[in-house]
């Protein structure tokens, strides 16, 4: 295989990688190569740098040291390392959620006047969940809700309100295991505490604490982020959009938003449509302003406004290498430090906006909800002014630009399936019960240059829909499928099995539903709970004919997501590179098998997308059997 084809199956990516090679611009793939060999101790989770008696390593071959200086063995070391990553992942999602809640709080105080409540229905529904009298005026409701949501972070006792969304049986399991999260921050702090030198030395107990922390993310921080973003920015509706580097426009001022937090990028969308700014752009010789996104910020603005997506995680550098990007404005998470270097090869201005996420020597225009639109306009103006600096001879925009439909939320699935006036999950449940649908799968997560970019995501998704499994996607995984044309209703005809095709055709949906960003994985949890509530598919999330997978994961956030899926009873596969824990056989066995007894879900590590699909299908069939469902209609 040509070297570049081994790097990515995406043609636009291949094209830009060829350009990068010619111009000797290094990307993540070259840096991965330069990192070889990657440390085996690290890969196996056997390196401990927690205390300063170390760093310590456990010899995986049993000849050398079998204990760190403190006496920690391979099980303790691998579990502590893993737990810290989960805490970090949960912290990222939850701190994002907190920032949204703070914005809501500022709105209530009348200090964030650029924003308004765009989904009042949802505001009221949420207020009811939090025991707020919805007959009060909107401002009071918002004030009270913001206070109560922020309190979820610092809560010290009882448990998070959102946990009650889960099926009763699931809540009982959490209670029995003592892993009902109390406060979002508290669980992260507690997990970090237990991983200190000389605190928790029992790998099983460390995993229990980790599960609790992850729950505080999935049913806490991430859920706060999703719900509030819907309320402030508007709940997504099915929307058509376009994806891949081809969405960058040659004659336009191209502004790329990248990161995860949509509060500012929402304003960038507005600013890009500002008549005065468009006029300014035209005065500079551009035809207009073209906004596009990368990573989850892209998913957010796509879901709500149909803003085109330039690419997923591994394409962030490539967008700049097209030579056509005036400004890349970034907020937080998954923003490669390498961007500064790559941007310096072009006229592109990299602009950081989040006070938590800065680069030395990079323009920083700090975002404050109080003057959101002003900041956004300033950035767009910078982009317009930069247009004339573009070297037109170095512009290479791949032609790939693929249609997609996005904007599915738990409420939308509800409505689409049941119709606006009898919104219900019943048709979905019935489809599964009757065997027309085999089951549901969540395919989520990042890219990782360790494996062929997008290949795992799309191979797995195709195989699942071929076997009549409805696939729910978020994050960079959804973007991968979108680029391969899987997010359009027509994809059902081309790729879906007969049963799934029938459903897609009947209701006009794609066989693969894009649910949003990675904090929107919380939508999957709520949707799954509502499927259980609808009846006929068991009493617990672990009864569902469903499975999860992060085929190309790389981030600590993916670990947190994996853990809250498993803690919620879902069988979850992690792709290519397993967790860095294989040096501990006990821990590996526990996560991949022992855990199931305890919590109904477990992990699997698999480095082959077709095998992943087979394992997921087997699991779904096992659950169908346990529910005594009819055989799959079109096996």
């Amino acid at each position: 295989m040509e070297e570049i084809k081994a790097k990515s199956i995406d043609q636009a990516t291949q094209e830009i990688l060829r350009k990068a090679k010619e111009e000797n611009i290094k990307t993540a793939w070259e840096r991965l190569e330069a990192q070889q060999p990657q440390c085996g101790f690290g890969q196996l989770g056997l390196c401990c740098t927690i205390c300063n008696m170390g760093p310590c390593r456990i010899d995986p071959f049993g000849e050398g040291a079998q204990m760190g200086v403190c006496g920690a063995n391979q099980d303790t070391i691998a579990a502590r390392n893993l737990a810290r990553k989960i805490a970090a992942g949960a912290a990222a999602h939850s701190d994002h959620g907190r920032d949204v809640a703070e914005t809501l709080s500022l709105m209530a105080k009348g200090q964030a006047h650029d924003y308004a409540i765009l989904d009042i229905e949802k505001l009221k529904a949420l207020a009811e969940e939090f025991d707020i009298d919805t007959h009060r005026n909107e401002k009071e409701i918002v004030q009270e809700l913001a206070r109560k949501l922020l309190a979820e972070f610092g809560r010290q006792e009882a448990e998070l309100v959102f946990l009650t969304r889960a099926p009763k049986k699931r809540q009982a399991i959490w209670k029995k295991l003592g892993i009902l999260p109390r406060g979002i921050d508290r669980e992260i702090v507690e997990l970090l505490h237990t991983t200190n030198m000389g605190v928790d030395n029992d790998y099983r107990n460390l995993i229990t604490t980790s599960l609790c922390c992850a729950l505080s993310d999935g049913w806490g921080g991430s859920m706060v982020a999703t719900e509030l973003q819907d309320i402030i920015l508007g709940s997504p509706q099915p929307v058509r959009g376009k994806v891949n580097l081809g969405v960058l426009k040659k004659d336009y001022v191209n502004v790329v938003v990248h990161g995860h937090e949509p509060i500012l990028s929402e304003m960038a969308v507005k600013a890009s449509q500002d008549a005065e700014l468009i006029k300014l752009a035209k005065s500079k010789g551009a035809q207009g302003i073209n906004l596009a996104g990368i990573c989850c910020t892209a998913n957010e603005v796509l879901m709500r406004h149909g803003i085109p997506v330039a690419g997923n995680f591994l394409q962030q550098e490539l967008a700049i290498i097209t030579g056509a990007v005036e400004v890349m404005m970034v907020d937080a998470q998954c923003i490669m430090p390498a961007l500064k270097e790559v941007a310096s090869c072009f006229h592109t201005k990299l602009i950081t906006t989040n006070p938590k996420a800065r680069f030395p020597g990079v323009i920083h225009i700090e975002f404050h909800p109080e003057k959101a639109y002003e900041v956004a306009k300033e950035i767009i103006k910078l982009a317009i002014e930069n247009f004339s600096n573009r070297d037109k001879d170095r512009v290479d925009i791949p032609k790939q630009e693929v249609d997609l439909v996005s904007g599915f939320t738990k409420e939308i699935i509800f409505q689409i399936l049941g119709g606006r006036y009898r919104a219900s999950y019943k048709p979905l449940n019935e489809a599964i019960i009757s065997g027309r649908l085999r089951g549901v799968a969540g395919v989520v997560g990042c890219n990782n240059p360790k494996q062929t970019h997008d290949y795992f995501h799309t191979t797995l998704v195709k195989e699942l829909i071929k076997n009549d499994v409805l696939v729910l996607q978020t994050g960079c995984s959804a973007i991968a499928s979108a680029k391969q044309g899987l997010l359009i209703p027509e994809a059902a005809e081309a790729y879906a099995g007969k049963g799934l095709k029938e459903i897609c055709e009947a209701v006009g949906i794609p066989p693969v539903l894009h649910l949003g960003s990675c904090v929107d994985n919380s939508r999957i949890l709520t949707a799954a709970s509502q499927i259980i509530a609808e009846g006929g598919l068991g009493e617990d999330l672990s009864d569902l004919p469903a499975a999860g997978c992060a085929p190309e994961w790389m981030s600590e956030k993916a670990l947190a997501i994996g853990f809250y899926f498993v803690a919620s009873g879902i069988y979850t596969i992690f792709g290519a590179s397993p967790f860095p824990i294989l040096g501990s056989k006990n821990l590996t066995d526990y996560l991949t098998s022992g855990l199931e007894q305890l919590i109904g879900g477990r992990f699997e590590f698999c480095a082959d997308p077709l095998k992943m699909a087979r394992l997921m299908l087997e699991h779904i069939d096992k659950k169908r059997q346990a529910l005594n469902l009819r055989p799959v209609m079109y096996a």
Partner: protein
Amino acid sequence: MKQLYYKVDKCLGCKSCEIACAVAHSLSGELFNTLQEEVLSLPRKKVLYYKDKNYPVSCRHCKEPKCVDACMAKALVYDKEKGMVLHDTERCVGCWMCVMVCPYAAIRPNLKTKIPLRCDRCNDKDNPACVEACPTGAIIWQEETGLRV
């Protein structure tokens, strides 16, 4: 004839060479699966520490190898052309005579398989696994006469 040299100032003691060696001599040739194999592949190289420096130690294929003399099973032969001590594991009975006489303690007894472990310079591969694995370029694989440091 090529020999392995070590720039000790560059060796950080990460033991990547040890791991790469074990993996290279495993059935799967891949880290994660190596640890799952029934007979655990063990490294033929060990990094030892002495006075603030790290020294990878493995068989240096002496021209007058004591181990070959000591081998009572004729499992060891010095191949002049290759400049290597060849180890016929089929003939080897695990008497540990070679371990007993190796002045560098570079032959390691694998008590499980009862076969001593020694560097085979990854046989026919262009570069031994340890050379490729070294992240700092501390292991040099070059002609004995052409050493430039």
